[in-house]
């Protein structure tokens, strides 16, 4: 069977969390029991939306509202978005959201007994540049309890949303912080089967990104699915 030009690499074994992940309680009633239908990609899966900065204006600094600084440890997060062949993904939109320094989201459903911070709204939006590089400013999010199990706390994390080349590249993920003792206890993080892939969700502290007298720097590189550079023998043979 000839490969079609836009075939994506199949999902790498162990790289993605299973939706049936019993340690994460909310998965119990929300994962399909039937096997996924195997169907090779068509243009519906390999094409995807494009976002213009004119319609989706960038919001690169979450650390202040109307010039009033949020409480917490100011951080710079930067990295590069590439595809699985290492090619940069330029001008792609990243959506970001996170808890404030106390571990509370600016969201009505979050009733955690921790202070709100009206100078921290907790969402941002940036676009990668021509080389796939992105950067934003925020404050380090706090840990928070989430009742998944006895004394359960989510590690510090920032939510990321990316689109990439096609609907098949859609990625929602979370960036974690190095050295967090809660990582080893977290069923969401540990749902990624292969530790090598799991640990890629942990940003690296980067002194070169750190701005003296102002903010600590963290590097978080992201890889999106995309068209394979070389045709595959069995493009429909996922996993």
């Amino acid at each position, binding site marked *: 069977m000839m490969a079609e030009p836009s075939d994506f*690499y199949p*999902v*790498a074994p162990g*790289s*993605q*969390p*299973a*939706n049936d992940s019993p340690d*994460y*309680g*909310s*998965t*119990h*009633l*929300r*994962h*399909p*029991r039937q096997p*996924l*239908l*195997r*169907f090779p*990609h*068509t*243009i*519906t899966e390999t*094409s*995807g*939306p494009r976002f213009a900065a004119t319609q989706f204006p960038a919001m690169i600094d979450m650390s202040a509202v109307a010039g009033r600084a949020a409480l917490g440890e100011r951080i710079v997060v930067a990295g590069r978005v*590439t595809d*699985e*062949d*290492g090619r940069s993904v330029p001008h792609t939109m990243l959506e*970001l*959201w996170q808890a404030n320094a106390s571990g509370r*989201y*600016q*969201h009505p*459903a*979050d009733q955690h007994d921790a202070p709100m911070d009206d100078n921290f*709204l907790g*969402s941002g*939006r940036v676009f990668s540049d021509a080389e796939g590089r992105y950067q934003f400013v925020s404050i380090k999010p706090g840990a928070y309890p989430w009742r998944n199990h006895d004394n359960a706390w989510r590690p510090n994390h920032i*939510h990321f*949303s990316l689109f990439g080349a096609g*609907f*098949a590249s*859609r990625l*929602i*993920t979370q960036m974690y912080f190095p050295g967090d003792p809660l990582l080893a206890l977290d069923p969401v993080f540990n*749902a990624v089967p292969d530790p090598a*892939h799991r640990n*890629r*969700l942990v940003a690296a502290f980067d002194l070169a990104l750190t701005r003296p007298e102002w903010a600590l720097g963290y590097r978080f590189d992201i*890889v*999106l699915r995309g068209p*394979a550079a*070389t045709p*595959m*023998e069995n493009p429909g043979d996922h996993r």
Partner: protein
Amino acid sequence: MSRAHAATAAQTIGPYWHLIDDAALADLTRFGAQGERITFGGRLLDGAGAPVSDACVELWQSSPSADARFPGWGRCGTDSRGAFQFITLRPGPVAGRGNALQAPHLALNILARGILTRLYTRAYFAGEALNASDPLLLLVEDPMRRASPLAHPAGPGAWQLDIRLQGPGESIFIDI
């Protein structure tokens, strides 16, 4: 086949993703798109039949082609009934692999607390002649299950499809 790096692992969108939401995103005609305007909506239900009220439903359609007036993509949060609704243009047939032709369809990603990797499904339109020869629908042997991605008319220009994550009537989810 080889690759430099596997794609970054997915994680759940969680219960607080509304911080990036905007109700306008559910209307794909908001930039003045021209064509046959439809609403497409439904309810999202869990394995106990209860509404999933904190989900993010994202829609993509490769027909009609996206342009400055038609983004082809939308996002809609589910409400306390698990309901979502998009305003969009009715899609036409879509080229498949090789010489195949696909029946008109909408692509849907379901993202929510308790879903670690997005669930991908499609919605088709009941009564379309091409449904009988659609390459994806033909893969589903059980006729009941094959009919499960068919949206049904719910008034003029209105289409309805409930999505069941688990259990009786479970929707078809696709390995993407």
